[in-house]
């Protein structure tokens, strides 16, 4: 292990005892810090947290996500955002302020089954997350392929300062849009490079707990390209 304080844990495991601050995915009970998920525990300064290895996506304001239109009613679209909540994209976000339910047809812009790059504009626990596509680089996706990974593995796919994703992109010349919700859009020049890219992504997903993963992915990609 690269750090002896990183330990594999399952729910209920006591990570440490004493006056620590309970950070993510842990609870404090009778002075014991207990993991609530399967993951890798980390103790740093006075904090204890667990990096989870599974779990759904919880929306956060400003997150970039990929959404799929699943229905539209008169004033908004409903999006599957691979979360416990549906996203809702109001019509005026697309049509502008002078949107008219009478003259503007929602299906002229987005249809059921369309994928969009979007951002979480607002979210609190009482309402479904509000989505926006009104920004540069957001909106309907016209090419590429949707790839799904566990949302908990997204940080690993990106890597420290983006090193992991850059490793893949430079090896296969892929363009990858990463949604924080675990949905990715991968575009490549041809099917062969696309498969190679997806293989590398899946490798990171299944082996995210392994140390020195960036190097291992790099050597895998190099040997693949060499074939």
């Amino acid at each position, binding site marked *: 292990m690269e750090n002896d304080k990183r330990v594999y844990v399952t729910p209920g495991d006591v990570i440490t005892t004493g006056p620590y601050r309970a950070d993510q995915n842990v609870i404090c009970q009778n002075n014991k810090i207990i993991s609530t998920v399967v993951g890798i525990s980390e103790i740093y300064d006075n904090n204890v947290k667990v990096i989870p290895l599974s779990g759904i996506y919880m929306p956060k304001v400003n997150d970039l996500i990929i959404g799929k239109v699943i229905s539209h009613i008169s004033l908004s679209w409903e999006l599957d955002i691979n979360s416990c909540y549906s996203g809702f994209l109001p019509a005026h976000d697309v049509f502008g302020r002078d949107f008219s339910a009478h003259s503007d047809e929602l299906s002229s812009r987005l249809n059921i*089954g369309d*994928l969009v790059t979007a951002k979480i504009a607002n979210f609190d626990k009482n309402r479904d997350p509000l989505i926006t596509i009104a920004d540069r680089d957001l909106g309907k996706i016209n090419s590429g392929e949707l790839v799904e990974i566990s949302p908990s593995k997204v940080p690993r796919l990106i890597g420290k300062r983006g090193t992991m994703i850059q490793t893949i992109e430079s090896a296969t010349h892929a363009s990858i849009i990463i949604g924080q919700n675990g949905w990715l859009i991968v575009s490549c020049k041809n099917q062969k490079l696309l498969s190679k890219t997806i293989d590398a992504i899946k490798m990171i997903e299944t082996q995210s707990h392994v140390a020195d993963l960036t190097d291992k992915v790099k050597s895998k990609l190099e040997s693949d390209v060499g074939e």
Partner: protein
Amino acid sequence: MTTIIDDLKKNKILGLLKNEKRIDSRGFLEPRSMTIDIDVIQKANGSARIELGNTSVIAGVKIQPDKPFPDLGDKGIFICTAEILPLAHPDIEPGPPGEDVIELARVVDRGIRETSMLDLSKLVLEKNKSVIGIFVDNSITNCDGNLFDACSYASTAAILSSNLPTWKLENEQPVLVEDQESIIPITTIPVSVTMGILNDYIVVDPNADEWECMDARITMITNSDGNICALQKGGSGSVTYDQLKECSQIAISIGPKIRKILKQYQIDN
């Protein structure tokens, strides 16, 4: 169950067909690879777990004495059911079976019944009073399209691998004779072949993604003689006469290959 497939994937599937390719790189007439395990449920008289691609089904056979149907006093009973377990897919809700599942169970039932796979006349203990019932129940544990063929193969393999217990009548009541088992009277082995029709292309054994894109489907069940014994057209689209002719040729050509696989699980005398 309606799953919305994303447009990029749908376009890719339909685009590939033009180049005679499929999304999972199979040929048009190529069913997915299949694994079958029998005797997975020891408490059943016969059982089979099948994986057709990622679609997986467990079929269990229960054989027990029963009263005959009033109009069929000289025949044993055969009943086939199916349930898509709610753990098989996020869109399945628990509760009484919906129309899709009832159709599924009836098509599988029809394939076995209409081919006369089981010689029900040999399952009579006393005419009009007491017969043997064969119940085949399919539990679908993972959905990835084409449940029809998966359930049909699972049911068939489970029946072929079943032992038939013996009952004798004592005071008109059937009593099980311990440790006396025979083989089920089998006359033929049905093979179900389901074809999806997408933009006028015919593909065998559509997976879930293709299933969501198809206009119509045809399930054809043939017997060991290569005759067509049962049919079901499904889906909201329509089919032409020429397509139907092509479908029958496909079903008849694939039949023997699948039948050979299923036959391996038949108990010899």
